[in-house]
């Protein structure tokens, strides 16, 4: 097996890229909310990515990766025609979908990626879909046009005011509700700290809903429990029982701290990768001079 070929790739924003990858078995089975685990190469780690979109007839899946650590940084060096060694899935449960009526999705940064298939599915189930997309600044915002194509209304915000309103997604959610909008259900995805704030706003506004969690995973099939999260006081495995859980029951504080477990090693891996890259570059330059 030669791995899974990248057939298209492009930059979506600063340090955020999308990849269309040949993975026919996953493409055929995937439903909104599910993810894959990939491994770039023989020395690679296993990391999860939400499947953002599929083209089942062509056997393609679409992944979006933000460069935050060694593996995601290395992923940015993979381009059309390259192959990644392993792709397994679709993992996790599909989003429980029903016609809630007025649905709001709240996306922070790259959290827009897992929410895109969900809004499409929700629209198909007859919901009125409202989206709030937030990012630190304009050059980090992704998928806005695609949300606008599907959703009944999209509101955007940035921390620095460079695009949309200035402020946080929770400010938008609260002001939207203050206008008299009654949301029957909410789904949020993004950085854990942002989901925590969103869940608090949802509680204040009496909006029930889900958070799509992003804990550390290893096998992704329920075997290791690295992805343990506490929901309503009970330990759950996000890979097989999630990744979505009742937003009002998730212990986000614990998740933030658990996601930091390997911060030291992540820095070390990134340093090692860069110094290794420098060494190779230097060697190549020396060869070129000969």
């Amino acid at each position: 097996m030669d791995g899974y070929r990248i057939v298209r790739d492009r930059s979506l924003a600063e340090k955020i890229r999308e990849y269309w990858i040949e993975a026919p078995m996953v493409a055929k089975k995937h439903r909104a909310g599910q993810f894959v685990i990939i491994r770039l190469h023989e020395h690679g780690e296993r990391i999860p990515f939400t499947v953002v979109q599929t083209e089942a007839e062509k056997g393609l899946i679409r992944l979006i990766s933000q460069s935050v650590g060694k593996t995601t940084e290395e992923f940015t060096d993979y381009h059309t025609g390259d192959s990644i060694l392993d792709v397994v899935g679709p993992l996790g449960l599909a989003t429980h979908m029903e016609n809630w009526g007025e649905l709001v999705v709240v996306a922070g940064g790259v959290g827009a990626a897992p929410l895109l298939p969900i809004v499409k599915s929700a629209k198909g189930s007859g919901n009125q879909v409202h989206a709030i997309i937030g990012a630190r600044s304009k050059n980090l915002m992704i998928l806005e046009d695609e949300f606008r194509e599907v959703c009944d209304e999209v509101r955007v915000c940035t921390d620095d005011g460079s695009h949309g309103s200035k402020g946080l997604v929770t400010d938008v959610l609260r002001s939207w509700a203050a206008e008299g909008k009654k949301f029957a259900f909410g789904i949020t995805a993004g950085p854990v700290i942002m989901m925590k704030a969103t869940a608090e706003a949802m509680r204040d506004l009496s909006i029930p809903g889900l958070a799509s969690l992003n804990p550390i995973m290893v096998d992704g099939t329920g075997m290791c429990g690295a992805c343990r999260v506490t929901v309503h006081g009970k330990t759950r495995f996000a890979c097989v029982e999630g990744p979505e859980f009742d937003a009002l029951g998730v212990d986000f504080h614990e998740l933030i701290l658990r996601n930091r477990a390997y911060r030291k090693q992540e820095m070390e891996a990134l340093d090692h990768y860069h110094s290794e890259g420098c060494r190779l570059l230097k060697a190549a330059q020396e060869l070129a001079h000969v």
Partner: protein
Amino acid sequence: MSEQKRNLKLHPPRVPMPEVAPEERIKGFMEVPLGYTEEQARLEAERCLDCKNPKCVAGCPVNIDIPKFLKEIREGRYEDAARTLRETNSLPAICGRVCPQEEQCEARCIEGIKHDPVAVGNLERWVADWEREHGAIPLPEIPEPTGYKVAIVGSGPAGLTVAGDLAKLGHDVTVFEALHRPAGVLAYGIPEFRLPRMIVNSEIDYITRLGVKFVFNVVVGVTVTLDELFAEGYHTIFIGTGAGLPKMMNVPGENCVGVFSANEFLTRVNLLGASKFPEYDTPILDSRHTVVVGGGNTAMDAARIAKRLNGQKVSLVYRRSIDELPARKEEVHHAQAEGIEFNLLCNPTEVLGDENHIITGIRCVRMALGEPDDSGRRRPEPIPGSEFVLDCDAVVVAIGNSPNPILTKATPDLEVTKWGTLKIDADTGATSKSGVYAGGDIVSGAATVILAMGAGRTAAAAMHRYMMGLPRPLRQMAS
């Protein structure tokens, strides 16, 4: 008879297995037992009484003809000995290393009644290693393709056994594996110092040369269902998905950073190379004192791995006494020799963490053994007021595994027990779903490599009979 002159009345002691010294071996992941020399193997094989009514064969879950292969060693016919092993065992180099022989063949050895039993396991290992070191392992004669297609779910010991057995009978066998590498628990679970990767790779290579195909990254039940496999033309399916759902302690603080299931700890190191971080991308926490909870082989493996990561202090916590430790004696001795501290008769009650939810210690309570429980072992009961804290920065929970429910949940017509194991017919391995067989930990709950292989052999024989009773595949009739 060439053996008439053997004097069997001397009863020489068992030839001990040479080992790497503890202070040397904890510096890396090299294999601990070094294996017999040819001379040692011949000497040990001489101890076999060649009983008229050998009990050892029945003690082996795959019924290896033990007296025969021992005689072949004595006579220097090593190729024949290897062939004898492979007649009933597709993975002899693995079984020679990880089987609990002391409870199986060696427990029934007649010589062992009054003296040391013959070291059948050490000799099995020696023959399999001799075979591998003397060129490619010869393939048996494989009959014409039958045209029947077999799908195997899971590439652990049970699946590999079924794959090997059915490929040898001319069937077209494909193994589906959820992980990115074959061999299941042999790859992610058992560490290199007990089972070198090269040995596993060599056995997989042999099975591949028998014609078996492997497909990785397929979670059957999710990526593809059993019914879809039948629709794709598979005639029969074997389920060997193992026991891959870790049991946790369910005590407060268990989700602190630094608490691992044994599966996670072992997978990071054995499957993903975390001991070679940052050459490999998967990290493991850099701990100073790891506490392993449990007393089985997995607990010993985890403790010994932790020791090798950086020479740190490693302690074991087990709720019963040393006599009830479920691990093999050999593994307990290895762990003790490597400086693992045993805290027996105590049980964790709480994991302690700091304000950042990072583990700082584990609170335990001392236990006393009361009346025997259902397992026949004396039930451990907490001694009130005996709590104490072990300061530590990592805990590995190795208290067992349940069957992974992914496939059974996706396949409602597979009958399961209340423990989530598959219901099968004991004589054939047949499940409640027509054409689907199962064996190994998914049926028995967490057990041993060799029991999984034994179950695989039973199922393979039944699957062969089942297929031969089906209409001949069209492709075969045309050719």
